[in-house]
């Protein structure tokens, strides 16, 4: 099991009912982790609509993650 911190923003934060949580998971990729959390929190956004960052760097969905990582799923952005 790997222990990571996940931060939520925008609609993901509202749907999760929290901005941040520390979780343990045996998911073998970031995509699989999102799948687990989507089921738990009822996230409506599909993975195709998101990006993912680990420790403030964009990553591929198929990459794994390590103990202590900070993982952020990035909903469609709207700056400017």
């Amino acid at each position, binding site marked *: 099991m790997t222990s990571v911190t996940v*931060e939520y*923003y*925008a*609609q993901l934060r509202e749907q999760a009912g929290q901005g941040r949580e520390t979780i343990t998971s045996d998911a073998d990729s970031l995509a699989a982790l999102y799948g687990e959390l989507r089921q738990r929190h009822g996230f409506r956004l599909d993975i195709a*609509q998101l*990006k993912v*960052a680990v420790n*403030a*760097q*964009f990553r591929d969905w198929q990459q794994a993650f390590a103990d202590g990582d900070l993982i*952020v799923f*990035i*909903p*469609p*952005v*709207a*700056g*400017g």
Partner: protein
Amino acid sequence: MSRVTIAAQPVDTNTLRKALQQPGCGGFCVFEGWVRETNEGREVSGLDYEAYNELAIGEGERIIDEAVQRFGIADARCAHRVGSLAVGDTAVWIGVVSPHRDEAFRACRYIIDQVKQRLPIWKKEHYLVGESSWVACAHAPADEHDHAHQG
């Protein structure tokens, strides 16, 4: 000092402007994005911005590096507000300096376009009538459809 600021309070743009002034530069180009009173036909009363600050600053720095490489500008700054904004408030400020005006104009345009597409910043609009909603702009640079709130 970081060239990118994510600000919870109104930004002193005069300070940003002064930080960019240098004797080798004859061109200064600025873009300000303001909160507009309508978006896609709906009357807007205000909006909330939130950002993933660390990644927004890192990605903003990369965008400015790209602008320096592509256009040969001398320097640039970007400030983006977070928090609650009202109609007329400045949401984003981009300033670019270069020896001559042409590269300053082009780099300024490049930076604001990339900022809108790439910075992890989210906007929830509040309307005079109806429920507030998160505005979805594009992740992909190829998407030319403009959901832009201003500019």
